[in-house]
């Protein structure tokens, strides 16, 4: 049963520097990097050494607790460096790309003939499994479970987010293959959400339940859609996957190749001529942004400005990210910033802040916190931007005092840190909501599992 979802509570953060719909090939990166920290809660083990030759799709890492789960190299080349931190923790694996790319051949598959177990083990063996994430806990899906549904949000409502209709255009075949495969893994359905007025390549596909979404951010968050379509109860699992990763999975089934290619939006007010670039997972930030930025006091973020990770220019595109945002750093003082009228920042109050007068204005926000960290004081503000049927401040507090029973009852199984990105944005007390939720989820994962 298809269901249209309309969200009322939320906030569209309109920023300057939206990517124009033009795709260029990014400069090919010399070195591609995999960072195990992208795979939250996984303990990685190496299956290569420095100097090993790998083909695209060949495993470089595997999961210590489930050795079948592999993490592939996005390119063919030579493992040139393994960066380790304290206690020899693996921080990054760097692969110097060959000039002529070779793909590991996993063999094209006939999906009709495959059952759920075969699909599962194929995804695990080819390194496509980590694209699947699960709720509860917002970690890589546990292959031992069968989810009650799989959710794909092809509607991006986050600030400056890459437009899925644009980046997925022409990929119908791959998307269909991936969705057919995934639909065999769940007892329920594959729920796909697209924008209300979208011209999405997913609209005409089979084996899925299509939902049309409208309303302000976080309407495009998969967590919001799960909450509205089929909320996660205790003991249940749902899986989620990004639409761009469906393309990679689809191509794998159709051609037998792990093709890490991805169209990435380079956006933000510090970008000259923001647009889309074709690149690969793990490519270096330099290859994407070099010579394209304004000024040199910028923050480069892999992902969107609300949930992405800060990166320096020597690091790389995150494993799950399809955009690089670049905004100015806000490491400067502002005279009487706490009481002068504010015209150039976004606020949901009207406390001499005037963004309510200009709902369509695009802002050039920087990374300043606009105030100091405080205890929770103001109430009722989070609820205005939080569409889930959960009490946001109360669940945050239960995470802070680590009461597992209460966390469970308040709805922790349903949430991911990104669901709290907007409450964090509007927080007058500048509390780190996403971090609080992440720590809470980690605690539950450890204690309850």
């Amino acid at each position: 049963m298809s269901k249209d979802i309309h969200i009322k509570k939320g906030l569209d953060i309109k920023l300057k520097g939206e990517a124009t719909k033009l795709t260029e090939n990014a400069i090919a990166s010399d070195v591609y990097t995999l960072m195990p920290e992208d795979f939250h809660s996984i303990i990685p083990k190496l299956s290569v050494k420095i100097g090993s030759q790998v083909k695209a799709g060949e495993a470089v890492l595997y999961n210590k607790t489930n050795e079948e789960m592999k993490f592939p190299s996005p390119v063919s080349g030579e493992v040139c460096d393994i960066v380790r931190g304290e206690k020899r923790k693996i921080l990054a694996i760097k692969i110097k790309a060959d000039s002529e790319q070779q793909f590991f051949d996993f063999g094209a598959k006939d999906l009709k003939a495959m059952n759920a177990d075969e699909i599962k083990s194929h995804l695990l063996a080819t390194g496509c499994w980590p694209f699947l994430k699960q709720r509860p806990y917002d970690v890589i899906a546990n292959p031992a479970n069968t989810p009650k549904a799989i959710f794909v949000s092809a509607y991006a409502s986050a600030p400056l987010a890459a437009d899925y209709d644009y980046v997925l255009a022409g990929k119908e075949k791959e998307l269909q293959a991936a969705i057919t495969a995934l639909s065999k893994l769940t007892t329920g359905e594959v729920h796909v959400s697209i924008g209300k007025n979208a011209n999405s390549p997913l609209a005409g596909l089979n084996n899925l339940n299509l939902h049309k979404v409208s309303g302000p951010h976080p309407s495009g968050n998969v967590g919001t859609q799960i909450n509205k379509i089929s909320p996660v109860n205790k003991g249940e699992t749902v899986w989620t996957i990004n639409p761009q990763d469906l393309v990679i999975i689809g191509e794998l089934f159709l051609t037998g190749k792990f093709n890490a290619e991805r169209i990435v939006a380079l956006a933000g007010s510090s970008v000259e001529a923001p647009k889309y670039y074709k690149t690969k997972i793990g490519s270096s930030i330099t290859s994407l942004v070099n010579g394209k930025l304004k000024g040199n006091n910028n923050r480069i973020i892999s992902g969107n400005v609300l949930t992405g990770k800060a990166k320096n220019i020597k690091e790389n595109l995150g494993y799950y990210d399809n955009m690089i945002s670049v905004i100015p750093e806000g490491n400067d003082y502002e005279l009487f910033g706490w009481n002068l009228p504010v015209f150039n920042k976004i606020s949901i109050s009207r406390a001499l802040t005037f963004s309510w007068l200009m709902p369509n204005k695009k802002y050039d926000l920087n990374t300043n916190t606009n105030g100091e960290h405080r205890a929770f004081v103001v109430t009722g503000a989070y609820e205005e931007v939080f569409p889930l049927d959960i009490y946001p401040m109360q669940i945050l507090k239960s995470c802070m005092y680590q009461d597992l029973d209460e966390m469970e009852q308040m709805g922790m199984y349903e949430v991911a840190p990104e669901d709290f990105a907007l409450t964090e944005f509007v927080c007058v007390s500048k509390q780190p909501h996403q971090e609080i939720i992440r720590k809470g989820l980690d605690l539950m994962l450890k204690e309850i599992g």
Partner: protein
Amino acid sequence: MGLKEKLHTIKENGKGKKWLPAFEAVHTFLYTPNETTHSGGHIKGADDLKRTMTMVVLALIPCLIFGMFNTGFQHFKAFGAPVEFLSMDAFWFGFLKVLPLVVVSYVVGLGIEVLFAIIKGHEVEEGYFVTGMLVPLIVPVDIPLWMLSVAVIFGVVIGKEIFGGTGMNILNPALIIRAFLFFAYPTWMTGDKVWVSGAVERANEMAAGVDVAAVSGETILGSLAQGKEFAYSVYDMFFGFIPGSVGETSTFLILLAGLFLIFTKIASWRIMVSAVIGALVMGLMFNGVVNVGWITEGSKFYSLMNTVFWHHLILGGFAFGVVFMATDPVTGSQTNKGKWIYGFFIGFISIMIRVFNPAYPEGVMLAILLMNVFAPTIDHFIVRSNVKGRLKRLKAKTA
């Protein structure tokens, strides 16, 4: 090197030093810090706690200035030499009386805040901004400054700091300060002398045998409680040309402030609206009791019960309490549904105390403190209903 750079250097040099919180309290007044986001979202909304608190202080300023005029106006009127309300005479007299209250409130209160910040090594928090402005507005103008200091120390330490500071307290600190004064020094907080500046002194002079005319400084509620007549019109009561605590008298200005706070989304309209509803319901019930004849003119409750129900809204500290104190987000109910219940009972109980206990004509103070205590319980049940919904969903699934 500009001021900005100089202050930055001082801050960098002060890292880890004891005096840093005191310096930062001043520094952040001049400049919002250069702090950038480091976890989670990379951008933040424009509002911080300083801005939020400033809005409340801003809303209080008209009440403060009106209170200065009214202090002088009431004084000269009671002493038989009336002056125009908006005259320099009235203002200057009131200014000299009220300013020391404001100064003492801020100096003592912020002093303690800074002391605690230094001891605990955290930044000075903004909570006392508002409390410090509320306190002089809710006391009788002639309250001795040492009493005010003692009460402020009590209120800030026992009411707030022992719970962990701003955001952690259970009871509204400004009301704790007032309640402390009320119970520790009742003769300075109630009665027919304290509400007009100079009336107490005059009474003392008379007791000493000086031949002067008596001065009454009774509030309307005080008169009503004793079944006495009073000579103020609804117009006087609404615009505030009546005796009372410094800032509480002008319902008109408080109403404007309330609308400002609702418009800026700083204070909860749910609490304000439901408190007014609660007060009206209680007032109507009392009027009804009188109408059906259960209470007759002989009863000591008659005058207050017979007060037209909506007059309660413009009498005493009700409006001030509802707009500025009941809406304190820390001590009030924190869920939107809970705010309706919380506000309603504040209004309801305010009027109940006012009528039934003539010794406490200021029912709103006790009603808010009482509901502060119950706010977490209200929230508990609201949140429980959400939890129950979740369990029900699970049950429906497994059944």
